[in-house]
């Protein structure tokens, strides 16, 4: 019952873990604003959530672009009311195929930072104010063990995720007194397109299904919701 009526903004919602999270949260009763670049894929996920009995609205947008945060926050808030939970799930590997830092272009490195670090920073900044005023909110940042383990070839991605995790810790230190919690989560390796892009040789059968990971993650976040005081938006 933790998610019934909760307003959630989820990025990277058109496939992989984002898609699975959208369906899982929608099934649990959350009201969702789903963000992704590809409108067609997003529309498909919105339909899947609605078929599962959930409420979802597509918010096409690219979190890595400079003016996206105000537009995404505006559309999502117009449709759902105040956002109670944000899940920064959109992610970029940087160079594909992966390559050593010495072979990584400026553009690929900057793309990883723009999507994985600067985008979440801007979107959080646009959404935490009303959370702090209301006295609570939860911001979830999807990270990776590449944030702490220096895997060769994962330079742009790993550096961006390490910075994202520290960004979350600082947000949390600044806003915890206002009731706004930031948490970093590591979903582990999954059978997704991103994983295939990164490690085409991996055996999909050896990897977790995004649906299973999403179930586990939603349970973890339910505990966070219970632990933190995240006031529910008044019914509209």
């Amino acid at each position, binding site marked *: 019952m933790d998610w019934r009526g909760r307003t959630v903004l989820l990025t990277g919602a058109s496939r992989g873990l984002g898609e699975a999270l959208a369906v899982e949260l929608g099934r649990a009763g959350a009201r969702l604003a789903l963000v992704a670049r590809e409108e067609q894929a997003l529309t498909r996920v919105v339909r899947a959530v609605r078929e599962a009995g959930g409420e979802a*609205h*597509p*918010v*096409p947008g690219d979190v890595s672009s400079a*003016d996206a*945060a*105000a*537009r995404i*926050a*505006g*559309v999502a*808030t*117009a*449709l759902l*009311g*105040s956002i109670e939970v944000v899940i920064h799930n959109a992610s970029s590997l940087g160079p594909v195929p992966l390559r050593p830092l010495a072979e990584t272009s400026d553009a690929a490195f900057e793309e990883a930072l723009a999507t994985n670090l600067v985008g979440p920073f801007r979107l959080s900044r*646009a959404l*935490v*104010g*009303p959370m*702090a*005023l*209301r006295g609570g909110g939860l911001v979830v940042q999807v990270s990776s063990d590449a944030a702490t383990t220096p895997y060769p070839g994962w330079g742009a991605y790993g550096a961006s995720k390490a910075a994202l995790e520290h960004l979350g810790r600082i947000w949390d230190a*600044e*806003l915890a*007194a*206002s009731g706004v919690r930031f948490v970093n989560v590591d979903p582990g390796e999954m059978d997704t397109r991103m994983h295939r892009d990164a490690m085409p040789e991996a055996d999909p059968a050896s990897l977790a299904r995004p649906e299973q990971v999403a179930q586990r993650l939603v349970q973890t976040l339910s505990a966070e919701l219970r632990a933190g005081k995240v006031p529910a938006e*008044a019914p509209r």
Partner: protein
Amino acid sequence: MIHALATLQAPITPAHRLLHVDPDGGELADRSLDALPALLRPGDLLVVNDAATLPASLAATAPDGSAMEIRLAGEEGDGLWRCVLLGSGDWRTPTESRPPPPLLEPGAVVRFAADFSARVERVAGVSPRLVWLRFSPSGERFWRALYRHGRPVQYAYESLPLSLDRVQTPYAARPWSSEMPSAGRGLTLPLLRRLRSRGVELASLTHAAGLSSTGDGELDAALPLPERFEIPEATVAALEAARHSGGRVVAVGTTVVRALEGSAAAHGGQVRPGADTTPLILGPGHRRVVVDGLLSGIHARDSSHYGLLRAFLPPPLDTHYLLQVASGGYRGHEFGDSTLILSAQTRR
């Protein structure tokens, strides 16, 4: 020329100066917004307007092919908006100097993009520039189209166009306002935390602040138009608690005064929770029944906000205020300094 002095090209910097007026003592003091927690007492209640600012300005093509601007002045239903028509030109020209817009008949269609248009449903009696538009698409696709094609209303005194994130208060939530409810612009999250630490209570409501200027004298004289608002149960409870404990109710912005006093005026002196619309226009001599104090911008003599300010400033304080604003070099407009009108006594 008090107006001109108070509104000279305001640089875009955080508003730090606070002109504190004590109506009982008749004193005006030059403070900074940073001093706000010290000027309030534990148990005082600060009520803010959490409406976010819409990208309320749309470049449009009239049925005759001419360029015009349409500004959203208030939502009246799904896809139905009260709108103001402006002539061609952009934010560099003050609205009153823009050419008149083409006049539209009911049924006329204006276009913003290939897949975004609006049909005129009704033209207001007060001015042909005030119209009701039915947007297509409606629903969630309306909001996506609006945020793709709309821009925030711009101000001729700015040197660069404002982006959407620049016209939001720090706690902006639902996008209901045509222009920024700017009184709260300086209430940063650290300042809100300091206020809470001091024991000051915070509450919010959502009020759809309308347009500040239309470029049409007759329509400007009718501002503000009726505006909708929504007051949460928790805010009504906080008002009750302040009343019982002797705390002062301080409205952040004239929109909050309008919502609270408008609700009370419609319900026998009691603020009711929920959504409503108010036609209330406050001015000199208005007897307030809810709000004790006001945190607002610096308002010049000829603005509609100054009229509301005078509901808090009995003569000769209103004149003293204007003189102090001019001689003290306070910055007016949306990005300027602040006024706090608050006496040591509660209104009751």
